[in-house]
């Protein structure tokens, strides 16, 4: 028995020795093929990132320190002059300040009104409260239809249809019927309303996908305990989809100063000054009849000032949300 065991050990030793070299070669080959495979997969994304993110930001930084030379049709370095203009205008130009304010108002309306509605509607569909298939189909329509088509239908219904209703049904005198799209006191809230109206089912797919991950056992337990829908929504669903809400909130902060809603779609580059937001103003410096190469450096400088202002707000909000994260795992 002892000799047999020793013979067996010797056989295993020989087997291992004879397999050593091929094993190493196989591992090396596998690693090499994996490296080649990953290189093929990653080369395009890396180049894309370097050109369209790093390159764009770097070029924007450089552009902000330059001015357009109409003789050479190039850009000359002028140091901080553009930034000085930006800070001067932000502190003295009421029109520019108001446009910044309007952009912030649009963003806050989206955050404080649209987002809660989106979550609530997603929950309503998730719970299949009433006619789920019908509502799910209909609520998808604003996502389907081109925003330009929605703008046209909205423009004519509100601009012509509603005045006709006011005239014929409510007998409102002609002089009292507002010009919804030229009276800026009404037009601006209307732009905000349009954004909320077309965005009711925004994020529906993502929110419902998050809610569908909630364990059935939790929902069943709640139902057995007799909790109401409201209690389930507040105490069960919201904590469990907290990461999704945080993601939408934090990534949406990039639009804090740059929201312009559908202003360009409604007015092209002819929007009344009292409707313009900073985002609209910067867009029309680059695109349309008011655009020119001369304005690129100033627009870049404003963009950098906004980015530098927004970055700490985003980091703070990320920290804030993480601090209050219920840290529920499922």
């Amino acid at each position, binding site marked *: 028995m002892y000799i047999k065991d020793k013979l067996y050990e010797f056989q295993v030793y020989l087997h291992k020795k004879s397999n050593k070299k091929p094993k190493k070669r196989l591992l090396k080959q596998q690693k090499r093929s994996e490296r080649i*495979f*990953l290189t093929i997969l990653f080369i395009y994304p890396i180049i894309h990132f370097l050109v*369209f993110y790093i390159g764009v930001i770097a070029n924007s930084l450089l552009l902000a320190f330059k001015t357009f030379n109409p003789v050479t049709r190039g850009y000359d370095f002028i140091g901080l002059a553009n930034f000085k203009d930006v800070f001067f205008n932000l502190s003295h130009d009421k029109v520019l300040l108001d446009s910044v304010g309007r952009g912030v108002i649009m963003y806050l309306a989206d955050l404080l009104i649209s987002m809660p509605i989106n979550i609530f509607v997603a929950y309503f569909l998730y719970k299949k409260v009433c006619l789920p298939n019908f509502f799910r189909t209909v609520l998808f329509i604003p996502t389907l239809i081109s925003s330009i088509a929605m703008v*046209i239908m909205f423009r004519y219904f509100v601009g012509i249809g509603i005045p006709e209703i006011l005239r014929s049904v409510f007998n409102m005198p002609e002089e009292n019927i507002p010009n919804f799209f030229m009276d800026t006191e009404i037009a601006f809230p209307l732009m905000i309303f349009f954004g909320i109206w077309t965005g009711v089912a925004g994020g529906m797919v993502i929110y419902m*996908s998050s809610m*569908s*991950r909630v364990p059935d056992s939790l929902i069943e337990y709640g139902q057995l305990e007799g909790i109401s*829908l409201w209690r389930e929504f507040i105490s069960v669903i919201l904590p469990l989809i907290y990461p999704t809400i945080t993601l939408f909130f934090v990534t949406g902060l990039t639009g804090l100063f740059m929201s312009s809603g559908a202003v360009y779609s409604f007015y092209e580059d002819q929007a009344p000054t009292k409707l313009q937001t900073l985002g609209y103003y910067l867009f029309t410096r680059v695109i349309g009849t008011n655009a020119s190469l001369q304005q690129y450096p100033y627009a870049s400088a404003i*963009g950098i000032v906004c980015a530098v202002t927004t970055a700490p707000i985003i980091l703070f909000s990320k920290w804030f949300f993480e601090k209050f994260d219920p840290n529920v795992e499922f």
Partner: protein
Amino acid sequence: MLNKKNKVRRGTDVLAIVGTIFVGLYVISLFIPILWAVISSLKTNTDFYYNKFGLPEEWAWSNYSKAMTKMCIWISTGKKLVPVYTYQMMLNSVIYTVGCTLASVFVHAFTAYGVARYDSFVGRLLHKIVLVVMVVPAIGTLPSEMQIVRALGFYNNMFGMFVMKGQWMGMHFLIYYAAFKGVSRDYSDAASIDGAGHFRIMLSVVFPLVASTTSTLTLLSAIGFWNDASTIITYMPNVPTVAYGLFRYQFSTDNEITSVPMKLAGCMIVVVPIMIVFILFRDKLIMNVNIGGLKG
């Protein structure tokens, strides 16, 4: 099983009633302008002037044929102005939609696969980049981006748009990443043992397992690109799509198409193809939304 558990049993729940009323009112508010637009698009100008809310006196189907022929954009080729008609814009839309959708879906899927399924330094770096880019704002970079796009020759270039839209960052990457992470390694290990290479495992084993995610993201991307007017306005005004054509059409001062019924007819021409796609693929889209096809 899931349907039964999620279904609300307490019909008198206050939130259920409030929610039904709210969503119901919203649906009505959505239907009314759309229905009004459809009916108004079939009226003559005189009929619309005197009868803004009734049915058409005579059904002016010719509005649609006129809108099809008159929805035209004049583009400058440097030496002269050239008209681009609806059928050309439709063709541009199809090419733009198909090309950008394929580029976007492939790049997202391939990159997310490499990051999720392999442990590599570059993969971890790319994952961190996605999260950083979502948080670090690249605000007000349009002038810079325009310069780079022009320098690369991507301005007014359909292929350039495919490259620009073939980007890998954003929500779709995270969705694919979660989907690939959710696929058991046993499948790819078994295929590897059988001698399958990396590409074969990716395309024949793992990708079919995330087919529902791919189909949903493909449809959503295609819808987004079909309706995308802002990219065309910014980077490709001389290769107009129907979405851009409709944008210009609403501001057109051509006598034959300044009337409201004509504008609305042009609007309907753009809406109809996407509604056909929705009716054909409704189950795929809605079903995946329903069962959390983007689960992960």
